[in-house]
């Protein structure tokens, strides 16, 4: 059964409970540390060296680290304190000193109006309690001409596929609120006065089922149940989401990801 959508406060608590004990796992996670979208985000932003960047929900700090060599200052923000400490340790170990760390909520960014050149948010917006408030807050903090770059799970236009993906993502991670479609991102950005310039798919490798479920400490019983549920799905859905089984257990499943870039006029 799909869990009910929790309240704003409950989502914040879930996110912190989910990520605080797993902070180091997100620093070392191959999915988060080595995605090709990191270089793509930098390429799309085209920084010239003078920019101030805010990386919202920095997690293991990978996006902040990707931008640090190309801009003047990166502010890495996250709701979870231990994630920030883990990110700082990781980034400082790479020798970058132009990264600052701030604990903040995505929906209430602590930045003055028109103060930032670039705002990034990678593999995080699907956790936000109020994604519209986040986009509004980001738009207010951007200077005219500034960019908001989102890299995240992307919802699907086909309702059956979308519901299937939502089910397995939320089963594995109860703090997964929603993967939004490109059309929804266009709506959020448009309402905040941002013009969407890029919507592009980010074809990622399939999740390696064991490490994907272990990172969020799913119990063995839940992993079995999720695996059985995926294997019992109709063939067209198993094919669409790249479900691969070995010895009666799922070993891989595929999510959908994409990049959205919007600019403030």
């Amino acid at each position, binding site marked *: 059964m799909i869990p009910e959508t929790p309240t704003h406060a409950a989502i914040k608590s879930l996110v912190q409970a989910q990520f605080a004990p797993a902070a180091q796992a997100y620093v070392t996670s191959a999915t988060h540390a080595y995605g090709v979208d990191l270089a793509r985000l930098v390429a799309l932003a085209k920084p010239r060296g003078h920019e101030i960047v805010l990386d919202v929900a920095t997690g293991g700090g990978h996006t902040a680290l990707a931008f640090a060599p190309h801009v003047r*200052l990166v502010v890495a923000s996250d709701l979870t304190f231990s994630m920030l400490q883990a990110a700082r340790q990781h980034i400082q170990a790479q020798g970058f000193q132009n990264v600052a760390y701030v604990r903040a909520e995505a929906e209430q960014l*602590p930045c003055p109006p028109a103060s930032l050149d670039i705002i990034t948010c990678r593999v995080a917006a699907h956790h936000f309690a109020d994604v519209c408030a986040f986009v509004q807050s980001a738009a207010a903090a951007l200077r005219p001409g500034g960019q908001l770059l989102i890299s995240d799970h992307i919802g699907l236009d086909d309702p059956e596929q979308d519901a299937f993906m939502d089910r397995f993502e939320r089963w594995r991670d109860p703090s997964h609120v929603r993967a939004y479609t490109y059309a929804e991102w266009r709506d959020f950005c448009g309402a905040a006065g941002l013009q969407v310039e890029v919507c592009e798919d980010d074809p990622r490798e399939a999740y390696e089922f064991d490490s994907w479920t272990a990172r969020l400490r799913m119990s063995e019983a839940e992993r079995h149940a999720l695996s059985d549920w995926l294997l019992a799905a109709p063939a067209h859905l198993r094919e669409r989401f790249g479900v691969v089984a070995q010895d009666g257990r799922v070993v891989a499943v595929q999510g959908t990801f994409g990049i959205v870039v919007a600019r403030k006029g």
Partner: protein
Amino acid sequence: MKNLWRVLGIAAVVGVGIMIYRMIKQYREDSVFDLAPAAAAPGQKRSISPELLSILADPADKGPIELLTDGQGKEWLVNRRNGYRYPVEDGIPIMLLEEGEKNKDESLIQK
């Protein structure tokens, strides 16, 4: 009778002790920002750079904040319009609205 005076004496000493403790506690709370320096004390490294400070705002009203150090050497980011105080922990500003509200100090408000 002698025991009664002894008990009263002890009670008086305890009472005076409590009063002194409360006075000291109140004084320390009142004077928490007496020593708030505009710049770092000699040899003391501030954890928030001027550039970072310039792009931080109170999440409540998005207005500017000041970096103050209290009498115990703890740093706070303070909004003098509403008295909200955001703590700096392990060099990381905690810019959560509920933290600002929780640590609000109306004596810091400048009209």
